[in-house]
Structure formats: structure tokens, C-alpha cells
């Protein structure tokens, strides 16, 4: 039985509504690469600049954050489960000279 990536609710619309993605990839990084190759619309939500995993995405291998393992090089075995769990972040950036995005439409 292959390893499985659990696709979070918020991203399923970019994966044809799929809840899970099975993979025989040898590492977590390669499994995610397979996922985005199959569903390219996921790429901008998972990666910055096409290759750097966004810092608000936490990748768990079974119940362990991959930062505490070997990161994207963490090896996979059959029946492993990869979960993508967001951190929710934001803020005004007031006082940091942030650029305001002000694009409400139709109001």
C-alpha cells in the first residue's frame, strides 16, 4: 500500500476535489513534487517561487513535523501519511512600511 498525502479542505478545489493522493515516491519532497505535477494549480499555494515550500505550511509525516525529521528528504515507507497543516498568519505590518493591498472589487 503506497504512502498517502492528505489534501486539506482549502486546497481540494485545486486537486479536482481529491481528498487524498497516493504516492510511491521515496521521500516527502518527491511525494509533494508528484502531487503538484499531477495538480499544477496547487503549486502556488504550496511553494514560493515554484520550489521553496511556503513557510506557513507545516508538513507532518504521520504525527511528526518533518522539521524534526529530515525535512523534505524524510524517507517514506508504505502506509505513511503526509498531512499538510496550515499556520494562519498575517497582520497589518504597520510601522514596517508595508505595501497595502487595496483591491476590493465591485463595492
Amino acid at each position, binding site marked *: 500500500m503506497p504512502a498517502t498525502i492528505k489534501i486539506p*479542505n*482549502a*486546497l481540494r*478545489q*485545486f486537486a479536482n476535489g481529491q481528498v487524498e493522493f497516493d504516492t510511491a515516491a521515496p521521500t516527502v519532497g518527491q511525494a509533494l513534487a508528484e502531487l503538484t505535477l499531477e495538480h499544477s*494549480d496547487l503549486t*502556488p*499555494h504550496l511553494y514560493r517561487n515554484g520550489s521553496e515550500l511556503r513557510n*506557513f505550511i*507545516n508538513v507532518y509525516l504521520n504525527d511528526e513535523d518533518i522539521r524534526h525529521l529530515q525535512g523534505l528528504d524524510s524517507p517514506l515507507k508504505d502506509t505513511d501519511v503526509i498531512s499538510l*497543516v*496550515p*499556520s*494562519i*498568519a*498575517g*497582520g*497589518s*505590518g*504597520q*510601522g*514596517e512600511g*508595508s*505595501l*497595502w*493591498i*487595496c*483591491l*476590493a*472589487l*465591485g*463595492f
Partner: protein
Amino acid sequence: MIRFSRQHIEAIKKHGERDYPHECCGLLIGMVLEQGDKRVFETYPISNAREEEHKRNRFLIRPEELLRGERYAQERELDVVGFYHSHPDCEAIPSQYDLDHAWPTYSYIIVSVREGRANQLGSWKLEPDRSRFNGEEIQCCLENFKPPELF
């Protein structure tokens, strides 16, 4: 469109005022209706997990807090449909940092809190290609209103 009761709007504003001059944050618990409209049944305050020195202009909801909120919602056969946070002494519009860290599908409520008093409040959704936020209409009880006319 996202639908709230006045009570929920007031709860978000009060949270923003209580945490001023820091940013507050929390979850919106509810359900997605037909055509993607959302109905909020509960607000779920969360302690801003950013470091003390950054709480004035940043917020963070840790993944374990989000998972806890999701479990809470699922026990009630509901979902996390969005998030709220405050902008102390700033407009209720998303910053570049908000845009960089946003997730699709969810609604993002921002309340402006000036000198400790909450005023403007708006809802925003990320464009699927991540290029920008779009304003989302808010319906509150019997009264319809839209994001603040800042534009």
C-alpha cells in the same frame, strides 16, 4: 457573501479592543452554503502566538490551535470557514503580509481598531491565483452592509 449575526460582529470588535494595541485573531466556525456563501455560527477566539514584540502588527495561529478548532467545529457538524484578526491603528484592508500568508477558500475578516476603539470591519477572500484579495459582502442579521468604502 458571508452571513453573521450582529452578536458575532460585536464579539470580533470586542476582541480587537480587548487585545489592543496588539492584534487579535480567531476562527470563524460555520458552514459553506450553496454557491459558496458562508454562514457563521460562532466565533472562536485564539491567543495570538506571535512573539510579544511583534504582536502589534502580526498574528499567528499555530497549526495545533487550528486543528483544535477544526475538531471543535466538526463535533458540531460545522467547519472552520474563515479567520478574523485586527489591525490596530490601521485600515481594515489586507496588507502584503496578509496576502503572502493567505489560504484560498477561507474568508478573512479584518477589523480596524483605532486608539482602542473598533470601527471598520471588512471581509476578504484570496483570488485563486494568489494575486490579490477581493472584498466579500457581509450580511449581518436583517441589515446588509459591505466592506468599508475605502476605495
